[in-house]
């Protein structure tokens, strides 16, 4: 069933996002307009309540193609955040409220929860509050909180929430099979998938441009210096995609898997290389606000730092590697 469902999801998600997200959607979203029609279609397709038993009853594995399709289209909505939040609530036995949800990357100080993606657009936020003995999953109604708008380098809402004066509407213990940093892990995972999608966008745009643009009487793609850059870009795209698809599969069966870090590191590296090559190939026109290349590149520069940068995850993984020693290194990889 899983493979069939995945193929079906892939087909319809691709159809939805490629027809609903265009340049205007992205420009409007960057200007602060909530893409109401897009969100409505996404909700009607059941993508925001995928894990609901009474509806699709899907698993993380089946959800992958939907997030991948949304990522390739750079869909400017908190779909991945809603999915993680809804799943966490379910795990904690709390009913998922309707509407867009978000997650709180760092809830160590509830008076100052910074960088909350789509904070002002979401209706509820889910946070994991660390405790001395156990952590808890809490559900905030955003209307109850003080919201200070902020944004990342791609003009996506990254807001600060203050919950000091208003408590959560629901709260429950974090289940034992989930790590205390579950939000950061799944956040890193979905950003890795999103980065792979954005790298793919850069590759597509760059290949198209290399075929269209002519200099010295020839298409620039016919120059080896350019075609080799595109080859490297292809390699990075495939690496980011494989790393994030692999991590998705690992986390679907074990929320504590370090594969989230692997994917975040690998996709983050691809982001640096891909944005450099994409802009080099497009040259001056790609440096303009009017051109569409920056929709992918600015997001990549922002996303690679969210939910733990490459160096954050690399240090964590590297410390484990050294602690486990050379003799265990190979068995830890397999």
């Amino acid at each position, binding site marked *: 069933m899983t493979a069939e469902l995945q193929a079906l999801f892939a087909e319809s998600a*691709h159809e939805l996002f*490629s*027809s609903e997200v*265009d*340049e205007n959607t992205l420009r409007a979203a960057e200007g602060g307009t909530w893409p109401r029609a897009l969100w409505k279609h996404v909700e009607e397709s059941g993508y925001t309540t995928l894990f609901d038993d009474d509806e699709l009853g899907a698993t993380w594995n089946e959800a992958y193609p939907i997030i991948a399709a949304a990522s*390739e*289209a750079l869909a400017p909505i908190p779909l991945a955040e809603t999915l993680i939040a809804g799943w966490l609530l379910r795990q904690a036995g709390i009913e998922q409220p309707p509407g867009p949800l978000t997650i709180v990357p760092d809830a160590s100080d509830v008076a100052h929860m910074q960088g909350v993606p789509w904070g002002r657009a979401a209706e509820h936020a889910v946070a994991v509050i660390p405790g001395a003995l156990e952590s808890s999953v809490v559900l905030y109604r955003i209307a109850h909180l003080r919201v200070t708008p902020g944004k990342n380098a791609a003009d996506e809402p990254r807001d600060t929430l203050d919950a000091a004066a208003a408590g959560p509407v629901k709260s429950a213990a974090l289940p034992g099979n989930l790590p205390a940093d579950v939000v950061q892990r799944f956040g890193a995972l979905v950003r890795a998938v999103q980065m792979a999608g954005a790298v*793919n*966008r850069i*590759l*597509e745009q760059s*290949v198209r441009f*290399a*075929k269209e643009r002519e200099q010295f009487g020839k*298409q620039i*793609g*016919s120059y*080896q210096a*350019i*075609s*080799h850059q*595109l*080859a490297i870009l*292809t*390699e990075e795209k*495939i*690496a980011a*995609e*494989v*790393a994030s*698809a*692999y991590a998705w*599969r690992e986390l679907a069966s074990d929320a504590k898997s370090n*594969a989230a*870090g*692997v*994917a975040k*590191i*690998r996709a983050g*590296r691809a982001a640096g290389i891909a944005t450099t090559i994409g802009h080099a190939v497009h040259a001056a026109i790609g440096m303009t606000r009017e051109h*569409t290349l920056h929709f992918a590149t600015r997001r990549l520069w922002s996303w690679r730092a969210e939910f733990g940068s*490459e*160096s954050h*995850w*690399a*240090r*964590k*993984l*590297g*410390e484990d*590697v*050294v*602690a486990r*020693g*050379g*003799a265990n*290194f*190979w068995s830890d*990889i*397999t």
Partner: protein
Amino acid sequence: MRFYCAKNFPVKVIALAPPLGEDIEQLRKDVRTFLAEHVPQYSAEIRAASWMSYDRAFSRSMGARGWIGMTWPKQYGGHERSSLERYVVLEELLAAGAPSGAHWVADRQSGPLILRCGTEEMKQSILPRIACGELTFCIGMSEPEVGSDLASVQARAERVAGGWKLSGTKLWTTFAHQADYMIGLFRTSGTSTDKHKGLSQFVIDLHTPGIEIRTIRELGGHDNFNEVVFRDAVIREDSLLGDEGGGWSQVVSELALERSGPERYLSSFRLLVEAIGAADRGDSRVTTELGIMYAELVTLRQMSLGVAAMLGEGKDTGIAAAVVKDLGVTFEQRIPHAIHDMFGRELLGTDDLTRVQAVTTEMAPGFSLRGGTREILRSLIGRELLR
């Protein structure tokens, strides 16, 4: 116009291989147990070179366990196991640093090529002996004037009564001085300006009179590659592999087999193991670099496994293999320099780390040359993109 059109993109993704099941993990355990018994007695340098270390006795013991020619039909001495099972055996060999050079080439490309293009007589007489680890093969492609531009091969094969007469020179032929057979690419008609037309492959018994093999010492002092001179050496008529004039397409598919395996990112693995042993957990510069390498390794492994699964399904892996090789060799080539940055030790050979570091550092430039250079691979990928 649609904003994006990923579906029609020319370069296909590498799909994840299915998770390795219980039986494959059991196989891995068996291989590990065997290697733990047979490999530690080799020196750290031999283990560092792994598939560039040559030991017929070791290969025979691998053959005895059914771990060579694993995917081939049983009637030819194979074991009819999956490409992923074979993959697991290979990666375990490399991770342990097992001296696998005597069977590596035959298992990877010569055997599969004979299976696909060879005569029934060839399959019956040669494949079972490869599978027991008895026969070793080398690759006769490059020549003094022919490197990246392989289609301009100059060595010639001419039909004579009862056989073929070979003349010309093959160069950089790894392990030719130790091998029993070469699969060589020769011109059977036309001239080198005819390029890919008129090329044919032959299975050549290296003990044939008229073949001279001269070893060329590598910069690190190892005797691995050779010059092989053919002075009107006459081989049997039935040595022709596949179709006369069909050598080019055969070579292209052979190169795809050569490019995506675990030896394309694990050639520096033993150095990494040594370095982890010497690392300080409190040094964040070192742990960060090791963490990045860990992520890179896990990713390359999944990419390479994905291509192995594609091979098992009989799919065309040309571009995917080039992608894995270019990324993989760039990674394994970076390791000795990264280790130098981390520790900065003089290569005096006073401990295992610096001994392994010296061997790996000296081998590393070749990683991006053998099997097709970085530039050639990138041109291959680029051409596909811009078609």
